[in-house]
């Protein structure tokens, strides 16, 4: 039993699985609202107000790990990803966004073969 899905043209949305990491693996409490603010600030820092208007949504947020699944329209995908890459500090601490997976299909985030421990 399977269903074949053919998508034509560009995907509407892109999905990113990201984690916010602090230097020396510091445990800084960040909630979903703060997480969203950090992302919008990062966009605004690199692209100004036009960047801040890119609708980046948090679909799922895992608070203890500070990891989230983001959804962004494909037109703003490169901008979002690069502003996450270039984010160096937030809340006065050195930090980094680690992007684990990037996909135009949400289903693909169900597994990540790169993080298997063999």
């Amino acid at each position, binding site marked *: 039993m399977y269903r074949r899905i053919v998508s034509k043209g560009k995907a509407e949305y892109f999905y990113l699985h990201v984690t916010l990491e602090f230097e020396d693996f510091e445990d800084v409490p960040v909630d979903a609202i703060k997480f969203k603010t950090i992302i919008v600030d990062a966009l605004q820092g690199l692209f100004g107000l036009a960047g801040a208007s890119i609708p980046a949504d948090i679909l799922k947020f895992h608070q203890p790990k500070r990891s989230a699944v983001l959804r962004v329209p494909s037109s703003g995908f490169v901008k979002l*990803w*690069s502003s*996450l*890459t*270039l*984010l*160096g500090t937030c809340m006065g601490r050195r930090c*980094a966004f*680690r*992007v684990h997976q990037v996909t135009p299909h949400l289903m693909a985030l169900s597994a990540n073969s790169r993080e298997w421990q063999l």
Partner: protein
Amino acid sequence: MAHPCELNILCDKNSGNNVEDRVKMALSLGYEVIVMNNFIPEFYTKKKKKGQEKTVPVPEASEIKIPEHIWKEFKKRYKNIQQCTRFTTVITDAAQMHGLTKQKELKGYDITAVQPTTEKLFHNCCTSDDVDIITFDMTEKIPFKIKRPSINKALEMGIHFELTYSPAIRDPTLRKHSIRNAIKILTVCKGKNVVLSSGCERAVELRGPSDVANLGILFGLNEAQAKEAVSSRCRAVLLHAEARKTIRGTAVMKVTPVVDISQKLQSSTESQKNSLQTTSELMPDESDKSDCNGLKEDRRTGNVSESSFRKRLHEKDTDFQFEDTVSSVSKKSKTVNVVDS
């Protein structure tokens, strides 16, 4: 994107002791080739009055490498990893280019990178035989104009241009400069022969290979070039370095008249010989092969003695000989000049 490569992990004395942390982070992000960079801004100065040359002691390449026992630990966890060394210096004087070949310690390093400060020196670097990478100070505006003729020469020589992204992460004002510089360089060289590397001072400043490729798109590369800039272009740098260090010679080529070969072919068809024999005539014969071996023995082996590199280089050599009949291979370019004149 095979074999992502990180070409610039600073490990001079000023950068602190967190080199292992950074290498560990780079490996966990998925890099397979790690290049330890020794950045010494001034290693060769010439005294004006006495005309004496003074060199700053450069540590041996083995000193800046990750110690063997730690590297073995890494190797257990991550397969197919490899570490190389690189020497970077700032060029402020044409005499310093000369110094690159003079100093013995530099021969131990796999890659040589230079950072020119004027337009003329930039042109010199682009035409030099002893340079693999031309790098730029991304923390301030590039003080000279980059011209297309120089870039063309560099493309011909197989020299690559390096863009470092970690200043852009460190500070918003530096970010402005580094983006501007990157766009400036990429518009002139049209995205060819560009490598992206970190130049990080801390482990948090490192980013994964795909992140960096995406950053390349922001700087103005297209998608394919951006991926190449962290993988196959870096591989090309390592191969260029290997070729530069090992082959110290030029080949004198002789044009074989086409008539001869066609006559041979005719004669072979007349005598109803198999086509196999004609191809065997076209193939490089044993003497050529032995020449090639002689060259291989001559190579000053650096630390990158990977069999894959050698294999590819060897393939290149044989291809080269197949196309043009090499009559004699002399060891140094100087002697060839004498023969020509």
